[in-house]
């Protein structure tokens, strides 16, 4: 199937998929927390656009609801909350020195190649054209994990976790035309609760070790090394 023969909406969805992948890479290389949160909100916005486009082109009305849900939760609420916490804890001026930034980026690129390689057989035997974007969503999931591994700030870990969820959501839209409404509502609620819980955890970690740098959690050893 050649891209010129697809209709305009599918092309647009594929391009948006590429952009979603790009935002994952941008998050990976970002040392400033506020900008990380902003890029995360942008990824959510791209996701909203994709969902709305899919809803329009497939004429599937309940996808509109999940688009609105994404917009409210992942573009407005969670970034706003994370941002407020960063400002409250006065961490917006810190720049996290990323170790081996170039190596992490190249690792990210190879993860993307890996996910393409893994999904190639599935994509080839399937008739759904949008399954192509599955590879992108798998790599968004993997890149989110890499983000959690490579960053040291707890807030960056939360953003990584949320972007893993973004990847799964994207996969659900492109592969199955959206999950059933009940499941989707449940997941959205889960994410919301997780975000609130993380906020409480931040406060606790902050009060016990006076920082959100998870490397300092080693200090919790009973015996000093």
């Amino acid at each position, binding site marked *: *199937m*050649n*891209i*010129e023969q697809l209709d*305009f909406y599918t*092309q*647009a969805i*594929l*391009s948006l*998929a*590429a*952009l979603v*992948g*790009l935002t994952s*890479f941008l998050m990976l*290389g970002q040392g400033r927390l506020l900008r990380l949160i902003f890029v995360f909100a942008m990824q959510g916005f791209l996701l909203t656009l994709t969902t709305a486009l899919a809803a329009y082109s497939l004429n599937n009305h309940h996808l509109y609801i999940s688009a609105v849900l994404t917009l409210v939760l992942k573009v407005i609420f969670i970034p706003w909350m994370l941002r407020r916490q960063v400002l409250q804890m006065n961490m917006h001026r810190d720049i996290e020195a990323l170790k081996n*930034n*170039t190596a992490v*980026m*190249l690792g*990210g*690129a190879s993860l*993307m*190649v890996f996910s*393409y390689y893994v999904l*190639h057989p599935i*994509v*080839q035997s399937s008739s759904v054209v949008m399954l*192509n*974007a599955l*590879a992108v969503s798998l790599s968004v999931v993997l890149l989110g994990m890499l983000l959690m591994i490579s960053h040291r700030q707890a807030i960056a870990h939360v953003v990584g976790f949320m972007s893993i969820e973004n990847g799964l959501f994207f996969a659900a839209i492109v592969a199955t035309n959206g999950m059933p409404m009940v499941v989707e509502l449940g997941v959205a609620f889960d994410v919301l609760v997780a975000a609130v819980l993380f906020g409480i955890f931040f406060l606790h970690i902050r009060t016990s070790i006076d920082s959100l740098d998870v490397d300092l959690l080693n200090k919790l050893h009973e015996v000093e090394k």
Partner: protein
Amino acid sequence: MNWLIAILQITLFVVLAPLLAGWIKCCKCRLQNRKAPSVFQPYRDLLKLTCKQPVVSEQASWVFTKAPYIIFSATVLAASVVPLIAVDLPTSASADVIVMVGFFAFARFFLALAGLDIGTAFGGMGSSREMTISSLAEPAMLMAIFTLTMTASTTNLSFAITHVLNEGLVLRPSFVFALAALTLVAIAETGRIPVDNPATHLELTMIHEAMILEYSGRHLALIEWASQLKLMLYGVLIANIFFPWGIAETFNLQALGYGLLVIMGKLALLAVFLAIAETLVAKMRLFRVQEFLSFAYLLGLLGMLSHIILEAVR
């Protein structure tokens, strides 16, 4: 006839390049709440420099005095490969995009030699920095360009643009990446703000300016003109490959005039974006430039990947 138009196109390239530089400066001044010089100020500067007598150090060898001519002519030759107002011209049909990159490398080689030749500390420092940056920028640029050439299955720019033009509006994920990569490379190669600041002679940060510090008079004029030409060339490359609509496919006066107007509009718009970006972004430390360029390379690589996976014929 075709050759006439080709020569006209190259002349337009050379003549319009200072205008673009003036327009960018004008936009930047407006954005920074300063009074802008006239758009034609670069022409006056070039004229003034040409009239002045060049001062050449006693230690300078022939490389130093010949280099400006070589750099300028290599840049003009590179410009002749890129379609500006019309496609299918004999100059752009005879050479492809790899030749263009080769001309750039040639010009850069002589610029670096000229920087080293005079033996000042700044010249050598500038040359070494320029070579470091270009050795990182070149693979990224080729990666971005290979994405396009794989789509059009030709390395010839003129044919590639015709291909994009005939295809109509196709949203390609790979083009998004290639556009981003090419933009980053263009910023690095033309020495614009996050990488190098063209407006300053601050000792420790300059790259391009450090190499040409010893030049004066008509030599300086030629080098300045060549760098303006290079800036315009990258602008045209971005504008015409990704948004080729409006370029002349037939050689009548109307189509050519329309093509000229359209490309000037596109370049003016690109210049506004460049000025906004330069106003918003601060110059980065020299040792972060490799991160910037490896990101550009990564984008090029992703573009290629998404071309192969998302768009390839199965």
